[in-house]
């Protein structure tokens, strides 16, 4: 069953730095020192086929990216007020993450061209959790 409360994440050892960064309003992601690209979500090795290096490091990303794809949910999670945008964002430093696009009066396909530049908005949920949302830049 889908809960009436908004689902919240719980960090694991390999994602703790990411979620700690969120609380500081910093987008901490990992970058591969061999293929020189950022990736997401956090794990202690590069997930790119052909690389898989374990020589990786944490960086603070700019929070800028582009809209890769999205849906406008009209019948989604009951704790979310419809319509809302579930989006994938390609980060400038590399890596793709899911988010919500916020700051729109009424989400429409016309207002949300794929490829549009977006930037991060840190949304403090409670003392433990800050979520990365994005708005059109």
């Amino acid at each position, binding site marked *: 069953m*889908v809960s009436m409360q908004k689902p919240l994440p719980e960090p694991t050892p390999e994602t703790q730095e990411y979620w700690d960064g969120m609380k500081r309003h910093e987008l901490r992601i990992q970058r591969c020192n061999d293929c020189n690209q950022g990736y997401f979500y956090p794990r202690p090795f590069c997930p790119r086929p052909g690389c898989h290096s374990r020589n990786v490091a944490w960086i603070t990303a700019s929070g800028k990216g582009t809209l890769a794809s999205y849906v406008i949910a009209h019948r989604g*999670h009951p704790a979310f007020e419809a*319509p809302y945008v*579930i989006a994938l964002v390609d980060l400038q430093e590399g890596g793709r993450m899911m988010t919500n696009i916020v700051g729109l009066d009424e989400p429409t396909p016309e207002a949300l061209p794929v490829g549009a530049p977006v930037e991060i908005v840190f949304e403090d949920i409670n003392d433990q959790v800050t979520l990365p949302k994005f708005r059109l830049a």
Partner: protein
Amino acid sequence: MFDSRELRHKVAIVGAAETNEVGVLPNHSQLQLHAEAAFNALDDAGLTLDDIDGYAGVAGAGMTEYLGIMPRWVDGTSVGGCSFLIHVSHAVAAIAAGYCSTVLITHGESGRSRVGTGGFPGGRQTPGGQFEAPFGVAGPPTMFSVPIAAHMAKYGTTEEHLAAVSVATRQWAERNPRAMMRDPITVEDVLNSRLIAWPLHLLNCCLVTDGGGALILTSEDRAKDFPKKPVYVLGRGESTMHQNISSMADLTEWTAAAKVTGPDALRMAGLGLEDINHAMFYDAFSHTPIYALEALGFVKPGEGGPWFAEMNSAPGGTLPINTNGGGLSYTHTGMYGMFAIQEAVRQLRGEAAAQVDGVKTSLVHAPGGWFSATATLILGNE
């Protein structure tokens, strides 16, 4: 009948290792335990992840996502503690058959510390629980649908194209008395049905039904002794890539179908696409058959929408697809693939409700999850 003794000495274990420590490991998530054991075994064998083309384990697609691999043989058999013995057994057969060359089997379990255990959406520590659930995904309509806008932007695929898939499929359902939805529909009807998750309207989404199906398979030498005309498995392909839609390799193509399952199935069957008379493309949503058609190579990338809009898949079209009425109009219990195979068998036996003349081959193609897993079968009656 095949004799398992023929497989003797054909396959060997070339790497074996445990995690660095065993015992109480609260600083490792369950996935990390899998990965640490995997890297240790790879080191033991002098291999890298890129040498691996088969994977077995009870964590399934979650583990292939985590490791970033796209195997061409998988065994997700999950039957409790003996599962890993079974994985080895399956791997021997798969390797001897040439489905893959190098299989990785992993086990990782945070059984005591319970770090990173549990499945999405219940598990707040899983990748899906951390990086997708907080943004309001709520099942297939808001997950499977996420790539579509990228396809529309890249290729000009339209809501009308998506609607045409539903219309063509309904034309088959009109001919099938067992289909749940049999009233004719138009593109306008689809576009006027309520929005579920733009760009998907209600009539772009599969049904939710009850039902079941079963298959019995046997060896070729016995097959002719049964009452019904044999339907042979001519080719097969399988893969898994991601569990979470945000980890899909390319939002505009069904990569595993294009690069692994389609080519593998066709190569095994010794057939080209021009030899395929009939197809069943699992239609969870209207875009799924478009992605399948393009990935398998029936059309070029981006030509799938217009191809369906020309009613090529409908009765009288160039390639009959989803002739039972599909998941969109026939039935969809949740794991519809069984019904796709059943219809292919009926067509090849000549006993389908909407029988197509002269079907000698049928291609059955299906996703698991949201393009997460992929499988292709080529079946034939000669």
